[in-house]
Protein backbone atom coordinates (compact mmCIF):
# COMPACT_ATOMS: atom_id res chain seq x y z
CA UNK A 1 0.00 0.00 0.00
CA UNK A 2 2.70 2.46 1.06
CA UNK A 3 4.75 1.29 -1.90
CA UNK A 4 1.83 1.92 -4.25
CA UNK A 5 1.27 5.41 -2.87
CA UNK A 6 4.97 6.31 -3.04
CA UNK A 7 5.48 4.95 -6.52
CA UNK A 8 2.37 6.50 -8.06
CA UNK A 9 2.93 9.75 -6.17
CA UNK A 10 6.52 10.17 -7.32
CA UNK A 11 5.77 9.17 -10.91
CA UNK A 12 2.81 11.49 -11.32
CA UNK A 13 4.74 14.26 -9.54
CA UNK A 14 7.46 13.98 -12.18
CA UNK A 15 4.95 13.84 -15.01
CA UNK A 16 3.01 16.90 -13.81
CA UNK A 17 6.24 18.77 -13.16
CA UNK A 18 7.36 18.09 -16.73
CA UNK A 19 4.11 19.52 -18.01
CA UNK A 20 4.46 22.50 -15.68
CA UNK A 21 7.65 23.34 -17.54
CA UNK A 22 6.00 22.85 -20.94
CA UNK A 23 3.15 25.17 -19.92
CA UNK A 24 5.57 27.72 -18.50
CA UNK A 25 4.47 27.80 -14.86
CA UNK A 26 6.93 29.70 -12.68
CA UNK A 27 8.18 29.63 -9.12
CA UNK A 28 6.26 28.09 -6.24
CA UNK A 29 3.23 27.25 -8.40
CA UNK A 30 5.32 24.79 -10.42
CA UNK A 31 6.02 22.60 -7.38
CA UNK A 32 2.44 22.84 -6.13
CA UNK A 33 1.22 21.71 -9.57
CA UNK A 34 3.48 18.69 -9.23
CA UNK A 35 2.12 17.92 -5.76
CA UNK A 36 -1.50 18.20 -6.97
CA UNK A 37 -0.64 15.81 -9.80
CA UNK A 38 0.85 13.41 -7.25
CA UNK A 39 -2.36 13.51 -5.20
CA UNK A 40 -4.46 12.70 -8.28
CA UNK A 41 -2.18 9.88 -9.39
CA UNK A 42 -2.01 8.39 -5.90
CA UNK A 43 -5.84 8.46 -5.52
CA UNK A 44 -6.18 6.65 -8.84
CA UNK A 45 -3.60 3.96 -8.17
CA UNK A 46 -4.72 3.33 -4.59
CA UNK A 47 -8.33 2.80 -5.65
CA UNK A 48 -7.11 0.41 -8.35
CA UNK A 49 -5.10 -1.40 -5.68
CA UNK A 50 -8.15 -1.63 -3.42
CA UNK A 51 -10.03 -3.39 -6.22
CA UNK A 52 -12.17 -0.62 -7.76
CA UNK A 53 -12.83 -0.79 -11.49
CA UNK A 54 -10.74 1.24 -13.94
CA UNK A 55 -13.52 3.80 -14.47
CA UNK A 56 -14.32 4.25 -10.78
CA UNK A 57 -10.62 4.69 -9.96
CA UNK A 58 -10.33 7.40 -12.57
CA UNK A 59 -13.33 9.11 -11.01
CA UNK A 60 -11.74 9.06 -7.54
CA UNK A 61 -8.48 10.35 -9.03
CA UNK A 62 -10.31 13.23 -10.70
CA UNK A 63 -12.15 14.05 -7.46
CA UNK A 64 -8.88 14.09 -5.50
CA UNK A 65 -6.96 16.30 -7.87
CA UNK A 66 -9.86 18.69 -8.49
CA UNK A 67 -10.40 19.15 -4.75
CA UNK A 68 -6.69 19.72 -4.14
CA UNK A 69 -6.34 22.20 -6.97
CA UNK A 70 -9.45 24.19 -6.01
CA UNK A 71 -8.30 24.54 -2.40
CA UNK A 72 -4.64 25.26 -3.20
CA UNK A 73 -5.51 27.72 -5.98
CA UNK A 74 -7.57 29.79 -3.54
CA UNK A 75 -4.75 29.68 -1.00
CA UNK A 76 -2.19 30.84 -3.58
CA UNK A 77 -4.59 33.31 -5.28
CA UNK A 78 -3.93 31.90 -8.73
CA UNK A 79 -6.32 30.57 -11.43
CA UNK A 80 -7.48 27.00 -10.79
CA UNK A 81 -6.41 25.93 -14.28
CA UNK A 82 -2.74 26.45 -13.38
CA UNK A 83 -2.81 23.33 -11.21
CA UNK A 84 -5.70 21.48 -12.82
CA UNK A 85 -4.19 21.28 -16.31
CA UNK A 86 -0.90 19.77 -15.18
CA UNK A 87 -2.43 17.46 -12.61
CA UNK A 88 -5.06 16.03 -14.95
CA UNK A 89 -2.56 14.82 -17.52
CA UNK A 90 -1.38 11.60 -15.79
CA UNK A 91 -5.00 10.41 -15.70
CA UNK A 92 -5.76 11.13 -19.37
CA UNK A 93 -6.42 7.70 -20.92
CA UNK A 94 -3.41 7.64 -23.25
CA UNK A 95 -3.08 3.89 -22.86
CA UNK A 96 -6.70 3.37 -23.85
CA UNK A 97 -6.25 5.53 -26.93
CA UNK A 98 -3.18 3.56 -27.91
CA UNK A 99 -4.88 0.17 -27.47
CA UNK A 100 -7.94 1.35 -29.42
CA UNK A 101 -5.64 2.36 -32.24
CA UNK A 102 -3.78 -0.97 -32.17
CA UNK A 103 -7.05 -2.92 -32.29
CA UNK A 104 -8.23 -0.77 -35.20
CA UNK A 105 -5.05 -1.54 -37.14
CA UNK A 106 -5.43 -5.26 -36.49
CA UNK A 107 -8.92 -5.01 -37.99
CA UNK A 108 -10.56 -6.28 -34.79
CA UNK A 109 -13.79 -4.25 -34.82
CA UNK A 110 -15.17 -5.78 -31.60
CA UNK A 111 -12.05 -4.97 -29.60
CA UNK A 112 -11.81 -1.47 -31.14
CA UNK A 113 -15.34 -0.65 -30.04
CA UNK A 114 -14.72 -2.10 -26.59
CA UNK A 115 -11.54 -0.15 -26.00
CA UNK A 116 -12.92 2.99 -27.63
CA UNK A 117 -15.98 2.98 -25.39
CA UNK A 118 -13.86 2.36 -22.32
CA UNK A 119 -11.55 5.25 -23.26
CA UNK A 120 -14.46 7.59 -23.91
CA UNK A 121 -16.11 6.71 -20.63
CA UNK A 122 -12.87 7.33 -18.73
CA UNK A 123 -12.66 10.77 -20.36
CA UNK A 124 -16.29 11.39 -19.45
CA UNK A 125 -15.74 10.32 -15.86
CA UNK A 126 -12.74 12.64 -15.51
CA UNK A 127 -14.90 15.51 -16.78
CA UNK A 128 -17.66 14.53 -14.35
CA UNK A 129 -15.29 14.53 -11.38
CA UNK A 130 -13.91 17.98 -12.18
CA UNK A 131 -17.38 19.35 -12.90
CA UNK A 132 -18.76 18.03 -9.62
CA UNK A 133 -15.97 19.44 -7.47
CA UNK A 134 -15.86 22.83 -9.15
CA UNK A 135 -19.63 23.28 -8.74
CA UNK A 136 -19.61 22.16 -5.12
CA UNK A 137 -16.66 24.40 -4.27
CA UNK A 138 -18.26 27.41 -5.93
CA UNK A 139 -21.44 26.94 -3.90
CA UNK A 140 -19.43 26.32 -0.72
CA UNK A 141 -17.37 29.50 -1.05
CA UNK A 142 -20.45 31.57 -1.96
CA UNK A 143 -22.32 30.35 1.11
CA UNK A 144 -19.27 30.93 3.27
CA UNK A 145 -18.94 34.50 2.04
CA UNK A 146 -22.64 35.12 2.64
CA UNK A 147 -22.37 33.66 6.15
CA UNK A 148 -19.32 35.78 6.96
CA UNK A 149 -20.88 38.98 5.64
CA UNK A 150 -24.00 38.36 7.73
CA UNK A 151 -21.84 38.15 10.80
Amino acid at each position, binding site marked *: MVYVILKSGISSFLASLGFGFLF*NIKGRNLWIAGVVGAIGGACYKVSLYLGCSEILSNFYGALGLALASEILARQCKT*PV*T*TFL*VCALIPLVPGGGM*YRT*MLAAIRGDAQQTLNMGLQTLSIAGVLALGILLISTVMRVYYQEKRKYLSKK
Partner: protein
Amino acid sequence: MNIEKLLNTIIEAGTMLVESGAEVNRVEETMVRMCRCFEGIEYADSYVTLTGIMFSLTYENKTITRICRVHTGEVDLNRIDQINTLSRSICTNPISVDELANELEKIKKMSRYTFKETMLFGAVGAAGFGIFFNGTLLEIVMSFFIGILIRCMSCFLSKHKLNSFLNNAISAGSAALSAQLIHLVLPQTNVDIMVISSFMLLVPGLAITNAIRDTIAGDYVSGVARAADAFLCAVAIAVGAGFVMYFWI
Protein backbone atom coordinates in the same frame (compact mmCIF):
# COMPACT_ATOMS: atom_id res chain seq x y z
CA MET B 1 -9.00 60.13 -19.70
CA ASN B 2 -7.96 58.70 -23.05
CA ILE B 3 -10.85 56.32 -23.63
CA GLU B 4 -9.50 54.80 -26.86
CA LYS B 5 -6.26 53.93 -25.20
CA LEU B 6 -8.12 52.28 -22.33
CA LEU B 7 -10.16 50.21 -24.79
CA ASN B 8 -7.08 49.13 -26.69
CA THR B 9 -5.20 48.22 -23.53
CA ILE B 10 -8.08 46.14 -22.19
CA ILE B 11 -8.42 44.36 -25.55
CA GLU B 12 -4.67 43.73 -25.48
CA ALA B 13 -4.99 42.10 -22.06
CA GLY B 14 -7.88 39.95 -23.29
CA THR B 15 -5.93 38.88 -26.37
CA MET B 16 -2.95 37.88 -24.26
CA LEU B 17 -5.20 35.83 -21.98
CA VAL B 18 -6.93 33.96 -24.81
CA GLU B 19 -3.65 33.28 -26.58
CA SER B 20 -2.09 31.88 -23.43
CA GLY B 21 -4.98 29.47 -22.94
CA ALA B 22 -7.24 31.00 -20.28
CA GLU B 23 -10.88 29.95 -19.98
CA VAL B 24 -13.30 32.19 -21.83
CA ASN B 25 -15.25 32.96 -18.70
CA ARG B 26 -12.11 34.23 -16.98
CA VAL B 27 -11.17 36.45 -19.92
CA GLU B 28 -14.61 38.08 -20.07
CA GLU B 29 -14.68 38.64 -16.33
CA THR B 30 -11.14 40.00 -16.15
CA MET B 31 -11.69 42.47 -18.97
CA VAL B 32 -14.88 43.85 -17.46
CA ARG B 33 -13.41 43.95 -13.95
CA MET B 34 -10.29 45.81 -15.14
CA CYS B 35 -12.47 48.31 -16.96
CA ARG B 36 -14.78 48.98 -14.00
CA CYS B 37 -11.74 49.94 -11.89
CA PHE B 38 -11.43 53.15 -13.91
CA GLU B 39 -13.58 56.05 -12.86
CA GLY B 40 -16.38 57.24 -15.10
CA ILE B 41 -16.96 54.01 -16.97
CA GLU B 42 -20.73 53.63 -16.99
CA TYR B 43 -20.96 50.32 -18.78
CA ALA B 44 -18.56 47.66 -19.99
CA ASP B 45 -19.30 44.32 -21.59
CA SER B 46 -17.35 41.70 -23.43
CA TYR B 47 -18.00 38.73 -25.63
CA VAL B 48 -15.08 36.36 -26.03
CA THR B 49 -14.68 33.21 -28.07
CA LEU B 50 -11.62 31.14 -28.81
CA THR B 51 -10.97 33.05 -32.02
CA GLY B 52 -12.16 36.57 -31.39
CA ILE B 53 -12.96 39.25 -28.84
CA MET B 54 -15.67 41.90 -28.88
CA PHE B 55 -15.58 44.59 -26.24
CA SER B 56 -17.55 47.75 -25.75
CA LEU B 57 -17.65 50.41 -23.05
CA THR B 58 -19.65 53.53 -22.32
CA TYR B 59 -18.01 56.74 -21.11
CA GLU B 60 -19.82 60.08 -20.79
CA ASN B 61 -22.85 58.71 -22.65
CA LYS B 62 -20.70 57.67 -25.60
CA THR B 63 -20.27 53.99 -26.46
CA ILE B 64 -17.24 52.67 -28.30
CA THR B 65 -16.66 49.11 -29.45
CA ARG B 66 -13.80 47.16 -30.91
CA ILE B 67 -13.54 43.71 -32.43
CA CYS B 68 -10.29 41.80 -32.32
CA ARG B 69 -9.32 38.57 -34.05
CA VAL B 70 -7.27 36.22 -31.89
CA HIS B 71 -4.96 33.52 -33.11
CA THR B 72 -4.03 30.62 -30.90
CA GLY B 73 -0.62 31.02 -29.38
CA GLU B 74 1.64 29.02 -27.14
CA VAL B 75 0.26 27.94 -23.76
CA ASP B 76 1.65 30.16 -21.01
CA LEU B 77 0.01 29.68 -17.61
CA ASN B 78 2.42 32.08 -15.94
CA ARG B 79 1.10 34.95 -18.08
CA ILE B 80 -2.50 34.15 -17.09
CA ASP B 81 -1.46 34.14 -13.44
CA GLN B 82 0.31 37.50 -13.79
CA ILE B 83 -2.59 39.22 -15.55
CA ASN B 84 -4.95 37.80 -12.96
CA THR B 85 -2.81 39.27 -10.18
CA LEU B 86 -2.62 42.60 -12.02
CA SER B 87 -6.40 42.83 -12.38
CA ARG B 88 -6.81 42.09 -8.67
CA SER B 89 -4.28 44.73 -7.68
CA ILE B 90 -5.67 47.57 -9.83
CA CYS B 91 -9.06 47.11 -8.22
CA THR B 92 -7.65 47.85 -4.76
CA ASN B 93 -5.22 50.60 -5.78
CA PRO B 94 -6.21 52.23 -9.09
CA ILE B 95 -3.56 53.20 -11.65
CA SER B 96 -3.63 55.27 -14.83
CA VAL B 97 -4.18 53.83 -18.29
CA ASP B 98 -0.53 54.40 -19.27
CA GLU B 99 0.69 52.56 -16.21
CA LEU B 100 -1.65 49.67 -17.02
CA ALA B 101 -0.27 49.51 -20.57
CA ASN B 102 3.27 49.51 -19.19
CA GLU B 103 2.48 46.69 -16.76
CA LEU B 104 0.97 44.62 -19.58
CA GLU B 105 4.03 45.26 -21.73
CA LYS B 106 6.19 44.04 -18.84
CA ILE B 107 4.13 40.85 -18.50
CA LYS B 108 4.35 40.32 -22.25
CA LYS B 109 8.14 40.51 -22.13
CA MET B 110 8.50 37.95 -19.31
CA SER B 111 10.84 35.17 -20.27
CA ARG B 112 9.76 31.63 -20.99
CA TYR B 113 11.75 28.56 -20.10
CA THR B 114 14.46 27.94 -22.66
CA PHE B 115 14.21 25.16 -25.20
CA LYS B 116 16.76 23.04 -23.31
CA GLU B 117 14.84 23.30 -20.04
CA THR B 118 11.50 22.32 -21.57
CA MET B 119 13.19 19.47 -23.43
CA LEU B 120 14.85 18.13 -20.31
CA PHE B 121 11.77 18.37 -18.11
CA GLY B 122 9.46 17.09 -20.86
CA ALA B 123 11.68 14.03 -20.98
CA VAL B 124 11.61 13.77 -17.18
CA GLY B 125 7.81 13.84 -17.47
CA ALA B 126 7.94 11.00 -20.02
CA ALA B 127 10.14 9.00 -17.63
CA GLY B 128 7.60 9.72 -14.87
CA PHE B 129 4.88 8.21 -17.07
CA GLY B 130 7.18 5.22 -17.57
CA ILE B 131 7.10 4.65 -13.79
CA PHE B 132 3.37 5.38 -13.68
CA PHE B 133 2.65 2.63 -16.23
CA ASN B 134 4.78 0.11 -14.29
CA GLY B 135 7.73 0.04 -16.68
CA THR B 136 11.07 -1.59 -15.90
CA LEU B 137 14.15 0.58 -15.41
CA LEU B 138 15.27 0.04 -18.99
CA GLU B 139 11.90 1.10 -20.37
CA ILE B 140 11.87 4.19 -18.15
CA VAL B 141 15.29 5.27 -19.41
CA MET B 142 14.22 4.63 -23.00
CA SER B 143 11.01 6.68 -22.53
CA PHE B 144 13.24 9.49 -21.31
CA PHE B 145 15.15 9.47 -24.59
CA ILE B 146 12.03 9.12 -26.72
CA GLY B 147 10.63 12.08 -24.75
CA ILE B 148 13.66 14.16 -25.77
CA LEU B 149 13.13 13.11 -29.38
CA ILE B 150 9.42 14.06 -29.29
CA ARG B 151 10.15 17.50 -27.82
CA CYS B 152 12.84 18.22 -30.43
CA MET B 153 10.60 16.98 -33.20
CA SER B 154 7.53 19.01 -32.24
CA CYS B 155 9.58 22.17 -31.59
CA PHE B 156 11.29 21.81 -34.95
CA LEU B 157 8.01 21.24 -36.79
CA SER B 158 6.17 24.10 -35.10
CA LYS B 159 9.06 26.42 -35.92
CA HIS B 160 8.44 25.63 -39.57
CA LYS B 161 4.77 26.62 -39.15
CA LEU B 162 3.39 23.14 -39.75
CA ASN B 163 -0.23 22.86 -38.60
CA SER B 164 -0.83 21.12 -35.31
CA PHE B 165 -2.51 18.05 -36.83
CA LEU B 166 0.52 17.11 -38.95
CA ASN B 167 2.85 18.16 -36.17
CA ASN B 168 1.26 15.72 -33.71
CA ALA B 169 1.00 12.97 -36.28
CA ILE B 170 4.66 13.18 -37.28
CA SER B 171 5.91 13.46 -33.68
CA ALA B 172 3.82 10.46 -32.65
CA GLY B 173 4.96 8.51 -35.67
CA SER B 174 8.62 9.13 -34.95
CA ALA B 175 8.09 8.13 -31.31
CA ALA B 176 6.44 4.86 -32.34
CA LEU B 177 9.18 4.22 -34.87
CA SER B 178 11.97 4.74 -32.37
CA ALA B 179 10.18 2.56 -29.80
CA GLN B 180 9.99 -0.24 -32.35
CA LEU B 181 13.66 0.18 -33.25
CA ILE B 182 14.62 0.07 -29.57
CA HIS B 183 12.56 -3.09 -29.24
CA LEU B 184 14.49 -4.65 -32.13
CA VAL B 185 17.81 -3.93 -30.42
CA LEU B 186 16.67 -4.74 -26.87
CA PRO B 187 14.00 -7.43 -27.22
CA GLN B 188 13.21 -7.50 -23.49
CA THR B 189 11.62 -4.02 -23.61
CA ASN B 190 7.87 -3.59 -23.96
CA VAL B 191 6.91 -1.39 -26.92
CA ASP B 192 3.49 -0.48 -25.49
CA ILE B 193 4.87 1.07 -22.31
CA MET B 194 7.54 3.08 -24.12
CA VAL B 195 5.10 4.38 -26.72
CA ILE B 196 2.33 5.27 -24.26
CA SER B 197 4.61 7.05 -21.81
CA SER B 198 6.24 9.18 -24.47
CA PHE B 199 2.88 9.83 -26.18
CA MET B 200 1.58 11.50 -23.08
CA LEU B 201 3.77 14.51 -23.94
CA LEU B 202 1.54 15.19 -26.94
CA VAL B 203 -1.77 14.78 -25.10
CA PRO B 204 -3.91 17.95 -25.33
CA GLY B 205 -4.26 18.46 -21.56
CA LEU B 206 -5.13 22.14 -21.70
CA ALA B 207 -7.78 21.66 -24.39
CA ILE B 208 -9.45 18.89 -22.36
CA THR B 209 -9.46 20.83 -19.10
CA ASN B 210 -10.69 24.02 -20.71
CA ALA B 211 -13.35 22.18 -22.71
CA ILE B 212 -14.75 20.92 -19.40
CA ARG B 213 -14.48 24.24 -17.59
CA ASP B 214 -15.90 26.32 -20.46
CA THR B 215 -18.85 23.98 -20.80
CA ILE B 216 -19.61 24.13 -17.07
CA ALA B 217 -19.49 27.91 -17.19
CA GLY B 218 -22.04 27.91 -20.02
CA ASP B 219 -19.69 29.05 -22.83
CA TYR B 220 -20.81 26.30 -25.18
CA VAL B 221 -19.24 27.80 -28.29
CA SER B 222 -15.75 27.67 -26.84
CA GLY B 223 -16.39 24.44 -24.95
CA VAL B 224 -17.35 22.57 -28.11
CA ALA B 225 -14.50 24.19 -30.07
CA ARG B 226 -11.98 23.05 -27.46
CA ALA B 227 -13.44 19.56 -27.33
CA ALA B 228 -13.13 19.34 -31.12
CA ASP B 229 -9.54 20.54 -30.80
CA ALA B 230 -8.74 17.85 -28.22
CA PHE B 231 -10.44 15.14 -30.27
CA LEU B 232 -8.60 16.14 -33.44
CA CYS B 233 -5.32 16.09 -31.56
CA ALA B 234 -6.01 12.57 -30.26
CA VAL B 235 -6.92 11.41 -33.76
CA ALA B 236 -3.71 12.92 -35.12
CA ILE B 237 -1.63 11.03 -32.56
CA ALA B 238 -3.43 7.79 -33.34
CA VAL B 239 -3.05 8.25 -37.10
CA GLY B 240 0.66 9.05 -36.85
CA ALA B 241 1.47 6.14 -34.58
CA GLY B 242 -0.93 3.80 -36.37
CA PHE B 243 0.79 4.47 -39.67
CA VAL B 244 4.10 3.31 -38.23
CA MET B 245 2.70 0.36 -36.25
CA TYR B 246 0.89 -0.88 -39.35
CA PHE B 247 4.17 -2.03 -40.87
CA TRP B 248 5.00 -4.08 -37.80
CA ILE B 249 1.78 -6.01 -37.52
